[in-house]
């Protein structure tokens, strides 16, 4: 039963709202607005309507960079969806089985990479994958695959997938925890009832457990989507702001950074950066909107 609000309610709510509005909500709106302005070479800022967006989408130079980053982001997202989330599902399913000894220890260890900063992750994996240091080559040699080794991080066509897989390694912990929490929320008696009716472990997973965690799986996917389209840190740590080789690992995040901050000889443009951020915002909004209004409702219905 809710209380009627008096001035205490305002005191409780105000600080959080003020900080959030001032440093998160308003800047976002301001950025959207800034995207409608352009900076000329002299540094003057003037209203320019949709000129920036026009440039981004139709100017050969900008469009090339934007499309490249966008395509990379999609690939990045695809790898996460196809690798990270199924692996998290598998690990969570195994962890949540009754009577797995050492489950707490496993849980603790599996969540570790998520705690590490991209700096150590980036560096550690660069080291491991480095042809000079030879760790990976040696390990692959142990299983007879030494011929397949290559300097993946340095090659145009393998740089992004490799970084994506490193990112998967880092972030499996989050969907793992979410799915795990959802799995153990399934009442034990429901699973037992299925056992008594003759369902084996596979059937129990596919027909009982999985349907009941579909909303969580949906949530995991949308969080992956948002997180991927916001990605920057790992690429920056491993490849620097230029996201080489030859922009093969460029993501919207690194493009955004370069655009508004500038790099090497090119001066940063706050307005172009703002325009790019606006586009990113709409991409994310579209994805989230699609999820909430189409998918999530269906998933809730199936899961009862």
């Amino acid at each position: 039963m809710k209380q009627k609000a008096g001035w205490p309610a305002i005191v409780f709510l105000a600080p959080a709202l003020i900080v959030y509005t001032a440093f998160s909500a308003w800047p976002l709106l301001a950025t959207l607005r800034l995207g409608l302005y352009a900076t000329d070479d002299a540094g003057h800022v003037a209203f320019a309507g949709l000129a920036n967006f026009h440039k981004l989408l139709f100017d050969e130079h900008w469009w090339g960079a934007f499309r490249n980053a966008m395509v990379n982001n999609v690939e990045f997202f695809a790898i996460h969806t196809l690798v990270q989330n199924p692996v998290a599902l598998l690990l969570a399913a195994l962890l949540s089985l009754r009577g797995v000894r050492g489950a707490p220890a496993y849980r603790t260890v599996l969540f570790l990479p998520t705690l590490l900063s991209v700096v150590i992750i980036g560096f550690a994996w660069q080291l491991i994958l480095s042809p000079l240091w030879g760790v990976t080559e040696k390990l692959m040699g142990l299983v007879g695959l030494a011929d397949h080794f290559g300097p993946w991080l340095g090659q145009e066509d393998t740089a992004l997938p490799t970084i994506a897989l490193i990112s998967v390694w880092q972030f499996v912990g989050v969907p793992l925890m979410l799915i795990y929490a959802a799995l153990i929320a399934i009442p034990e008696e429901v699973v037992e009832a299925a056992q008594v009716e003759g369902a084996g472990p596979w059937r129990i997973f596919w027909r009982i457990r999985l349907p009941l965690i579909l909303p969580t799986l949906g949530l995991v996917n949308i969080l992956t989507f948002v997180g991927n389209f916001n990605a920057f840190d790992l690429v920056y740590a491993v490849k620097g702001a230029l996201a080489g080789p030859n922009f093969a690992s460029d993501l919207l995040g690194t493009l955004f950074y370069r655009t508004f901050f500038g790099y090497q000889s090119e001066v940063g443009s706050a307005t172009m950066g703002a325009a790019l951020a606006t586009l990113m915002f709409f991409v994310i909004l579209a994805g989230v909107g699609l999820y909430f209004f189409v998918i999530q409702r269906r998933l809730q219905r199936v899961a009862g």
Partner: protein
Amino acid sequence: MSTVRLSHVSKSYGNNPVLHDIDLEIADGELVVLVGPSGCGKSTLLRMICGLEPITAGELRIDDRVVNDLPPAQRGIAMVFQSYALYPHMTVRGNMAFGLQIAGASRADREARILAAAKALHIDHLLDRRPRELSGGQRQRVAIGRAIVRQPKLFLFDEPLSNLDAALRVKTRIELARLHRELAATMVYVTHDQVEAMTLGDRIVVMHEGRIQQAGSPLELYEHPANRFVATFIGSPTINLVPATTQACSAAGIRVEVHAGCVVDAPIDGSALAPGQRVELGIRPEHLSVADGAGADVRECLRFGGEVTLIEQLGESHLVYVRCADGLELVARAPGHTRLRIGDRIGLEAGPKALHVFDAQGQACRRTAAG
């Protein structure tokens, strides 16, 4: 339908024993109720029969076949869980069909069985609903329906009525009794409510601290409790327990002294007792009558005097709470027309045939033929 036999079954979790040496036989078509206070092991025992808990030692036979290592699905059983455990994401029909699908029943066969069970339980209009749209009573019936359609040899019920409100509980209890008669099925039923046990069970198994205290028909348990625990567990309100001392003991009868001047002969086999031993007398409230002061021979009748502290009026009878001078508190069931008030000094008496005697270990002493 089938028989169940437990031989020297025990269960421990690691070093922690929870069930000790259980021996029990359940005949074909019987409804056996496992009853006892929380933690007595009744649910554990049920789950062991079901196959959800491993048996540490001993043998479990269903239809003369040792099933200790068989998974639940191969034992020919169906279980109704306390929380009903319906599959939340399936419709009622889906819930009832699940087990049949696994067993490979044809669609026509499935539909027929589901419809028949649903009609019998009056849930045929709910077949397309989801569990969250159903009331507690309806969910319970779906849980029972799910068990029925599989036509198991043995039904197991784990406190199925405990989540229902009082009125619904009584109604459902009657329906379960009817179901038992109609299906003529072997059922094992767990509850902590002794009224449920008494009304439903062909036989009742009273359990306490992992052991069977007594197994028998409801009347047997009521009239001849094997020990103090069973005597206090069965019967509401609880049996009165009065400390006493033996004065003379023989196989034909004993004489006990309750308090100074109050001595009575009871038709109890006292061969295991000696004079001067402390025992406990059990007298059920319904066997204590308000004395009319007609001055009967003190040796024939046990008499107590005290002050009325509370009267609970039930309509057809009253529960009269009396405190005696020496601090002894008794409950008596008096007929509804009795007019008493708090503070009245009254006498309560009980005939020797109504006495239960428990030795110092709490074991009941046998009644002689005359008792």
